[in-house]
């Protein structure tokens, strides 16, 4: 049982929940995730840990109400209610170190999992440039939190309602073309966005990491539902990832696999197909 301490609507259909999960908060590292089960009829849904506080024993989850279970969690659960199961931390923590200049790219609610990783980069003395993108200004989340831990924040929206009009890949490409020294790029967001980021950085040989949000059941390596081709090898996102070398990931296969239950459910984490970045 994990009690909901706070719940806030931070963008259309996007909720921020602080949840009492001391065993997770005690151990989790940036880049890891939890699996949540709302009640006995629920799916097991992977959600990234967007923030954590070892002192209070709480973790922060950002939930987009797109699938059956996330909708149920967002619509029927309120402050003081217990989420039946929160298990974690799962997955390998992000690789940490002093790399130099790091560009972090967050698309839609992908900003949430980016945040703790970017904060850790920042604390280790890296220069952090954050690119945050969304379809519309209303869908930009955590801009202020990102500003605190970034040396520079660039906003892009598809419709130009905030920041510059265009996609997250536009400023990234410009930086690379201008010869700016970038040591690492981290991209988290819709699969197509991560694919496009990887395509932009590849010709420049800049190390690029993507955190994959695949279909999962157990999250501990047991089912293989999260398998993804990386460098020609099958990897399990739950135990080998969720972060992988974005230049090695077979994104086309990942996009296809995300359609497995299209008829039965919407997929967690993704922009639900509404995001215009798909068209790029």
């Amino acid at each position: 049982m994990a009690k909901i301490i706070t719940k806030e609507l931070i963008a259309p259909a996007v909720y921020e929940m602080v949840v009492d999960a001391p065993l997770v908060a005690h151990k989790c590292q940036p880049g890891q995730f939890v699996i949540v089960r709302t009640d006995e009829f629920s799916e097991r849904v992977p959600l990234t840990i967007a923030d954590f506080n070892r002192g209070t024993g709480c973790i922060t989850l950002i939930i987009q109400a797109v699938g059956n279970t996330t909708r149920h969690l967002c619509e029927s659960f309120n402050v003081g209610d217990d989420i039946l199961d929160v298990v974690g931390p799962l997955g390998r923590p992000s690789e940490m170190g002093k790399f130099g200049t790091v560009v972090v790219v967050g698309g839609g609610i992908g900003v949430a999992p980016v945040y703790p990783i970017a904060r850790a980069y920042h604390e280790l003395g890296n220069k952090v440039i954050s690119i945050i993108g969304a379809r519309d200004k209303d869908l930009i989340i955590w801009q202020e939190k990102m500003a605190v831990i970034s040396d520079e924040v660039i906003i892009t929206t598809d419709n130009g309602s905030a920041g510059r009009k265009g996609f997250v890949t536009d400023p990234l490409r410009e930086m690379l073309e201008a010869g700016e020294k970038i040591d690492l790029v981290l991209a988290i967001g819709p699969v197509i966005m991560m694919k496009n980021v990887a395509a932009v950085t590849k010709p420049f040989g800049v190390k690029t990491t993507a955190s994959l949000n695949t279909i999962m059941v157990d999250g501990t390596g047991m089912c293989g539902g999260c398998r993804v081709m990386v460098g020609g090898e099958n990897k399990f996102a739950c135990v080998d990832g969720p972060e992988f070398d974005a230049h090695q990931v077979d994104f086309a296969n990942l996009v296809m696999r995300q359609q497995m239950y299209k008829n039965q459910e919407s997929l967690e984490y993704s922009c639900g197909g509404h995001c215009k970045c798909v068209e790029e």
Partner: protein
Amino acid sequence: MRGGMRNPMPEQPANVRNKNFEEVALGYTKEMAVDEAQRCLNCPKPRCVGSCPVNIEIPKFIHEVAQENFAEAYKILKRKSALPAVCGRVCPQENQCEGKCILGIKGEPVAIGRLERFVADYAREHGYDNEAEAPAERKDKKVAIVGSGPSGLTCAGDLAKMGYDVTMYEALHAAGGVLMYGIPQFRLPKEIVQHEISGLKKLGVNIVVNAVIGRTFTIKELMEEEGFSAVYVGTGAGLPHFMHIDGENLNGVYSANEFLTRVNLMKAYQFPNVATPVYVGKSAAIVGAGNVAMDAARTAKRLGAEHVYIVYRRSEEEMPARKEEIGHAKEEGIELRLLNNPTAIIGNEKGWVSGLQCVKMELGEADASGRRSPVAIAGSEYVLDVDMVVMAIGQGPNPLIKDTTPDLEVNKRGNIVADEFGATSIPGVFAGGDIVTGAATVISAMGAGKKAAAAIDEYLQGK
């Protein structure tokens, strides 16, 4: 009696049961059980006992059944087995106790498994199972059990009976391991598994679900920070194998683990009344021929697949599944495609399975295992028309504990190295079941848990 034949097990008719998830075998009536028990010769040197991995006093319990002393029979079972209702259903008795029964030489062996099941079910139905036993003297030492499958449950039960303070950690949201996620409802009802586990709780075992050892706590943290004097690792064979052929990442391809976990643990057969979906094709190919493959095939059939094929590269004789399960599968309409080896999974333009390319095989010379090894027949490739493929070719050890416990010795395959009593390379850390042996049976994992419990007791007494 009956010309040396055993009492047959009442079952749901095949063409009824292959459309529902109710239990296939209905269990003996009291009259059948007593009659069957009377067949036992009560051998002075019973061969059955020695071939039971947990050494149940088989003639003794059967003698009590014959006398209609069912409560006494139950007590005898429980002395050695924490999970009689489970073992009576899923043990491969034909290779163990029943395989050694003297009656089997001329006729059929005593139906020991069916009697075990009867006694456990009768006790549960009459409410005298799980009665609190006289508590052993409490010992002031804590033992952690990692994994709540058959091995962990047995080890936990034995240690609790000895008076230890036992905590069992489970990564999933329900205790039981493979008994919950792997073996289907129609072969092992989950309510029965949970009932047996509730017996352990009454013994004082503290069960912590949603705790992934290696992540939530490491083994080292359990011993150094959480105050456990010993740890038993029974994490099973949880990592699914794939064939590494083209097309395995197409939609419509499952590992048996994922398919069965969705249906059993997550109850996807009740979708949309539960939220977890499962995909089932019109025609399904199950690759492999073990018990897991039979379970996957029979599950796919129940979920509405019109054709379900078992695709196996050897012949029926070499199929590793229990004969009984193969028989059940055939009765339910599962089609065997033997001496067929998959070479690729074919997909359509949308990324879904549209066929399984196979090559026909013939049996050649005997290999190291003594089985005639299959050899591909040149030019015999064809495409089996399926829109679903389940890979049921075995499981390996989950790497989580190995990766987070640097001093723990593992072999090339990643299995933990342990001696016959479960001791590993780290003092105080014991291991047993599939994580040590590779994928095997419920009862052999229980046997390992039992031996390790005794070894842990000895280790802690010596400290």
